[in-house]
């Protein structure tokens, strides 16, 4: 398992065999749906485990994950982070990732849950 803060999925050689194609649907507490690339979602170690563990989670089959405890605006921020992280790691992103003070703590709790 990868530690937090290490480079995300695409850098690991073994990942090449993994199915990182396609999209996954992330659903917020209010029922709002975010469709993101699977590759992006797997920046989160928690999601990665869900999406890659063989036959384990129903989420894998249905291609959607529900987050009854994460509100829409926080989930949106998290999706933005996933893409920021991918760009950062490939050297395309150099600007800071903006975080609004109002949501910092909520975002932090979600980041903790998602191990990202």
């Amino acid at each position, binding site marked *: 398992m990868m530690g*937090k*803060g*290490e*480079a*995300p999925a695409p850098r690991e050689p073994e990942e090449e065999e993994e199915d990182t194609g396609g999209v996954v649907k992330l659903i917020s507490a209010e029922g709002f749906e975010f469709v993101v690339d699977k590759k992006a979602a797997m920046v989160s170690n928690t999601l990665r485990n869900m999406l890659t563990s063989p036959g384990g989670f129903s989420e894998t089959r249905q291609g959607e994950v529900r987050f009854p405890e994460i509100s829409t605006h926080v989930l949106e921020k*998290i999706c933005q*982070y996933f893409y920021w*992280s991918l760009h*950062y*790691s490939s050297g395309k992103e*150099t600007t*800071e*990732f903006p*975080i609004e*003070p109002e949501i*910092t*703590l909520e*975002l*932090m*709790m979600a*980041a*903790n849950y*998602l191990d*990202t």
Partner: protein
Amino acid sequence: MGSACSRKRGQLVHEDDLYSARFSKSGSFKWLLHTLPRSNSADVHRRGQGPAPGRCPSLMELCVAKVREDMNRYSDFSQLPRDLSQQIFNELVESGYLTEASLGAFHDCDLQDICLGEYPGVTDAWMEVVASQGQSLLSVDISCSDVTDSGLNLLKDCSSMQSLACDYCDRISEHGLKTLSGFSNLTSLSIKKCAAVTAEGAKAFANLVNLVNLDLERCPKIHGGLVHLKGLKKLEKLNMRYCNCITDSDMKYLSDLTNLRELQLSSCKISDFGVSYLRGLHKLAHLNLEGCAVTAACLEVISGLASLVLLNLSRCGICDEGCENLEGLVKLKALNLGFNHITDACLIHLKDLINLECLNLDSCKIGDEGLFHLKGLVQLKSLELSDTEVGSNGLRHLSGLRNLQSINLSFTLVTDIGLKKISGLSSLKSLNLDNRQITDTGLAALTSLTGLTHLDLFGARITDAGTNCFRFFKNLQSLEVCGGLITDAGVKNIKDLKALTLLNLSQNGNLTDKTLELISGLTALVSLNVSNSRVSNSGLHHLKPLQNLRSLSLESCRVTPTEIKKLRLAALPNLISVRPE
């Protein structure tokens, strides 16, 4: 997150290497805490601004950094999950942003680790919040703080505590130490340089039956207090270095601590009789008696300590007679016999200590014949022969020590001819030849040692011609050539040693500003010394690219403190040590 916390706890008791001097800010320099950067602050700074190339900051790290930035928005973290508030707390401490005011937000947060060691401004007023963590609190470090008895007493209900460090807390009295007796879950206690640890004050230790690590270094009044340790059967590590009031009569209370693995007694006032109380400590792996008034007679007792891996007898009164008792200590990996009266006759008893990796014979009366007995010690990585009578002939006995990484031949009788014999030691990384007999010829014999990272030719008579050899030592991180014979022409052979972090060219009176120009590309340099040369104010500007420079010495040159100061302000922000100042 949990792992980060436990790592912190583990760090509270230092794994002191007996052979490395550890710099620590001591209590008497508390005022410096306000001016020195926190040890990790540079990293944190970097993390806040975006980490090292390639490594993406986690969202968690970004959030923690953001909270730190906006700390004035927060007054209460008690509703946050514990591991999150712990991360915020750690970040504030590491970055030096924690204040008495912001600490208030951590009231009742169930924090497990409060590591405020060496943090500036910690007083009793902070301890109320520390204590509010209650039974969650597992580890506290308030070293170098101004906490007093009443501050310490606030912690009395935090009885889950496993680790406590209050080194250099000079406001805590004998009476205050009584609080400690309630912490019966403590496995680690560090209370360095505390005058309150007296025969009376030490009573508090008697209850701490779970202690595994106890650090009482530099407690100046501990004499008579060790009686309270005798029931601490779980103790594995006990540090009493520089407790120079400890005498033989104190030692008897250690005799039943049979789980002891590490015992540090350097500079205690103990004699052979005191050592005799250690007879039964069969698990002892590290024993440090440096500077104790013991003689070779104590080796009879030590010879029974068959688990010993590290034995430090430096600066004792050891003579040859009795050294035969060293023969059986075959597990020894490190042996320090420096500054004793031993001769070649002692070394014969070391020949079967084939696990030795580190041997120190500094300033002993040994010579070429003695080295013959070291021939078979093929695991040796480090050999210290400084200030001995070892000469060129003796070095042939060392030519088979293929694992040798470090050898010190300074102030020996070794001459150029001898160096051929160590030219095959390709593992060598550190070589000290600070010795007037060594010249260019000797250095030329060593060009095969391409792995060298540290080369000390301080007093060797190396000329510009000899500096041609330096191009074989591309990995050099430190170089000292101070024999007086180097000119700017020789420095041309130094300018490409890009890995250099330390360069000492002092005493070479002919060096000019040209030298500074030549070395201006050595941007890794942290320490530079060109004292006693013709370097002048007008050459200083060449040093501007040396952004990592922390120490600069230009004594007895044609430079003025004012100009150096200007340089520091204009271009060298990391410069903290400057001569002349």
